[in-house]
Structures are given as C-alpha cells and as structure tokens.
C-alpha cells in the first residue's frame, strides 16, 4: 500500500470524518453539543477498553521482549519535553511557565490518538487481507487461512506488539514530571502555591492518582490478571464496539476543537508551527528508537504516534495544579486545535509512510 492509499484509508474512516464534521458543526454555529457527562462517560469507556485489552494482550505476550521498548518509551518521555521546553523558550520566547506547561503536554501522550492509531492499523490489516484474498493468495474462512493471514500481516509489518497499551501508560507521567522539574529549576521566584501543600511529592501522587493514569494502570492490571477468561466475558462490550464509540468521541472532540480554532490567532504562528513540526520530529525519533529497540514496524509506528501525540487529559489537570501561572489558552489550543487534528488526519498515514521508509519495506 502506498502513501496516498494509506492517506485515503485514514481520511475516509468514519472516525476522522466524524471529527471533521464536529469542527464544521461549530463553524456553521450548529446547536449540536454533547453534555459533559457524555464526554466523561466516553472517556471512561475508552480508557477502560484500552487498558483491559492491553492487559489481556500483555498476559499472552512474551515479556522478555518488553524491556527494551519500555526503556525506549521512557527515554522519549524525558527527551521530548526537554527539547520542547528549549524550543519554546529560545525560539518561541515563551515565559518559563508556559514553555514548561506546553512541554509537559507534548511529552505526555493522548489515549485517543493512540486508539485511533490502533484502529488505523486494524484497518490496514483488513485491507491487506482483502487485497490478498482478491489476489487469490489467501482463502477465507478456515483455520489454515487464519495462519496465512497472520503470516501476511507479519510480512507486511502490520502486526504490532501486544504490549503497546503498556507503553501508552508508561509514557503518560514522566514528561509531566520532567517539565515541572525544569520549571522549578529555572524559576527562583517560583511560588508553587507551596503553602497549600502542592509539594513535589503531592504533585507526583496527584499525577499517579489522576483519572487517566489510574484507569489505564488499573485496567491493564485487571486485564492482565483476569487473562483470556476475563477478556472473553467483557470483550463484547469493550472490543467490538470500540471503533463505533471512538466515532462518537471524535465527533465531540471535533466540536471542542472547532470552538478552539478562534484562539489560533491569540496563540500566534509560532505555536501553530510548533504544534505541527514538533510531532513530526517526535514521531521520527520514536520510529527510529523503536526500530533500534527491535520492535516491529507497526509497533514502532505506534510508538512514533505516541511520541507525536500531545496529552489533553492528564497534562492539563496537572498543569492547572502544578503550574497555575501557565495560561490554558496556549497549551490547550496547541494540543487540541493544532496537534490533535494534525495527527489524526495527516499524521497517522505520514508516520506510517515514514516507518515504511525507515524499515525499507516497500
């Protein structure tokens, strides 16, 4: 599959189109809005589903393959916020607080972008299988064919490691901690509302107990210990409907993004450029480091997507508490109105394309 085809495959998915429809809806001033509670419910569903499936997959994976990609993920979570911080501070002339807060967002990860990357790869697999069936290389429906399909995915580098959601979980927190440390070191006059107990330990606790981290870690463990038997009990609710629910969530994400578009002027061209170039650079770094860590092509691509994605659940919550002097307009607009749509629409097929080149596959 070439780059254009992958691009179309991604663009024509109901998820991406729903996102675009959401943006359009705000542009034409539609009265469509999602109640907050629905947004929260969808978020909980997606995090639980990603965690549970990841845990189950982990329980049937070979863990000895895990430590190198795990280290790679942590390295990305340290390098990206540092690079981001200096880029924003030196080139973008942001103050310490805003630079650190934006860096925290770009170092951390977005579970929904991850979910979309998984959906994208599942669609790639389905396409490859369809093409092979049409070409008469694989027949459909028997056990032997299932094995042939797996071989096919492997050959085309479309099988990703079962522990990918664990990497998502690993990458959520470190970058935020790094960014807060940078801000503390850089600002003598820092007043981290210290009289109120927002000490460093306190912030770390809040991060680990933050809802996205807690749900991801918690359900990874639950999926892991309850294994195949547990997964079969809940998969009709958490597996098959996943892409459908994601479609609704992306519709809502589009509505929020659309409302944010007006803030693009406020944040200025530098941040818009940053919100596009930084993810591409991070994705490239992620794919390269993933290959070095011996990952499959699909695994490295998804690691690249994680690197490229910007947090919008864990990081904003942490920054509100730990960096209250940073302005939400900057970090939310950049992460939500620039990087999120870029990754979803252009990024996924682009990173897939980069990975194909890096792995020299076609």
């Amino acid at each position, binding site marked *: 599959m070439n780059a254009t085809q992958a691009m179309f495959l991604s663009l024509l998915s109901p998820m991406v189109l729903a996102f675009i429809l959401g943006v359009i809806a705000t542009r034409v001033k539609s009265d469509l809005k999602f109640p907050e509670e629905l947004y929260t419910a969808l978020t909980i569903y997606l995090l639980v589903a990603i965690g549970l499936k990841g845990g189950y997959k982990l329980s049937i994976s070979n863990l000895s393959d895990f430590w190198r990609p795990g280290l790679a993920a942590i390295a990305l979570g340290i390098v990206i916020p540092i690079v981001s911080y200096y880029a924003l501070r030196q080139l973008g002339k942001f103050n310490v607080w805003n630079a650190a807060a934006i860096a925290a967002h770009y170092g951390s990860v977005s579970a929904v972008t991850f979910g979309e990357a998984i959906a994208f790869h599942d669609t790639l697999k389905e396409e490859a299988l369809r093409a092979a069936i049409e070409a008469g290389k694989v027949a459909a429906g028997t056990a032997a064919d299932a094995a042939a399909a797996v071989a096919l995915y492997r050959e085309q580098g479309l099988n990703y490691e079962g522990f990918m959601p664990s990497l998502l979980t690993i990458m959520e927190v470190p970058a935020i901690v790094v960014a807060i440390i940078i801000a503390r070191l850089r600002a003598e006059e820092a007043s981290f509302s210290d009289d109120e107990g927002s000490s460093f330990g306190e912030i770390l606790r809040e991060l680990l107990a933050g809802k996205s981290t807690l749900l991801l870690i918690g359900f990874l463990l639950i999926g892991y210990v309850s294994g195949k038997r547990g997964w079969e009990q809940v998969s009709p609710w958490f597996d098959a409907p996943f892409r459908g629910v994601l479609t609704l969530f992306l519709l809502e994400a589009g509505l929020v993004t659309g409302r944010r578009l007006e803030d693009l002027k406020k944040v200025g061209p530098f941040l818009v450029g940053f919100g596009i170039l930084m993810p591409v650079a991070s994705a490239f770094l992620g794919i390269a480091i993933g290959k070095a860590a011996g990952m499959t092509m699909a695994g490295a691509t998804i690691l690249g997507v994680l690197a490229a994605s910007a947090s919008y659940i864990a990081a904003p*919550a942490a920054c509100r508490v730990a960096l209250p002097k940073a302005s939400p307009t900057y970090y939310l607009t950049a992460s939500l109105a620039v990087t999120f749509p870029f990754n979803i629409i252009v990024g996924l097929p682009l990173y897939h394309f980069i990975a194909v080149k890096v792995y020299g596959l076609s």
Partner: protein
Amino acid sequence: MQTSEMKLVVVIAEDDLEQRLTKEILALGARGYTVSRVRGEGWHGARKSEWEGENVRIETIVPESVANSILARVAERYIPHFAVVVYVQNVGILRVEKFA
C-alpha cells in the same frame, strides 16, 4: 413570618477545589453548604467544558463571624493561586440554631 438575619457566602471556584473548600468551610464553623456545578468565564479565561475544567458554586449560610473567617481564608489561600470568586449577602432565615 419572622426571620432572622444571617450571611450567605457564595464561593465560585474550579471544581478541583470542591473538596478542599467544603472541608475548610465546615472547619471554620459552617453547619452545612450546598454545591452546584457551573460553568463560567473570567480573568482566567473560559471554564466551560471538561477539557478546560468547570467550576463549582458553593453557598453556605453562616453567622457574620464565620462569614468573615471564610472570606479571610479564601483571600489568603485561594485567590492568589486559583480562579476563585467570592461574595457575601444578607439573608433572612428560620431557626437560627440550625446555622449558628
């Protein structure tokens, strides 16, 4: 109907602060409080969706002295760091002993 005068203190703040604020309010002598979920806009920008965070509106009926302590506490610990608005009004109530 005969009513007695009390103070109504209303605090509007980011929802993350709900637990801290209600604990403080009770600790400072209030006998109860009522909370509603609200959205808003102010100096710190819009707080109108889960992405940006939302606000809570806490109202508590208290004697004047307690009202003063609450105002002072909010002024000292919250206003410098967080998106908070506080105001106070007179209200007529039944049964003074329920609030004092």
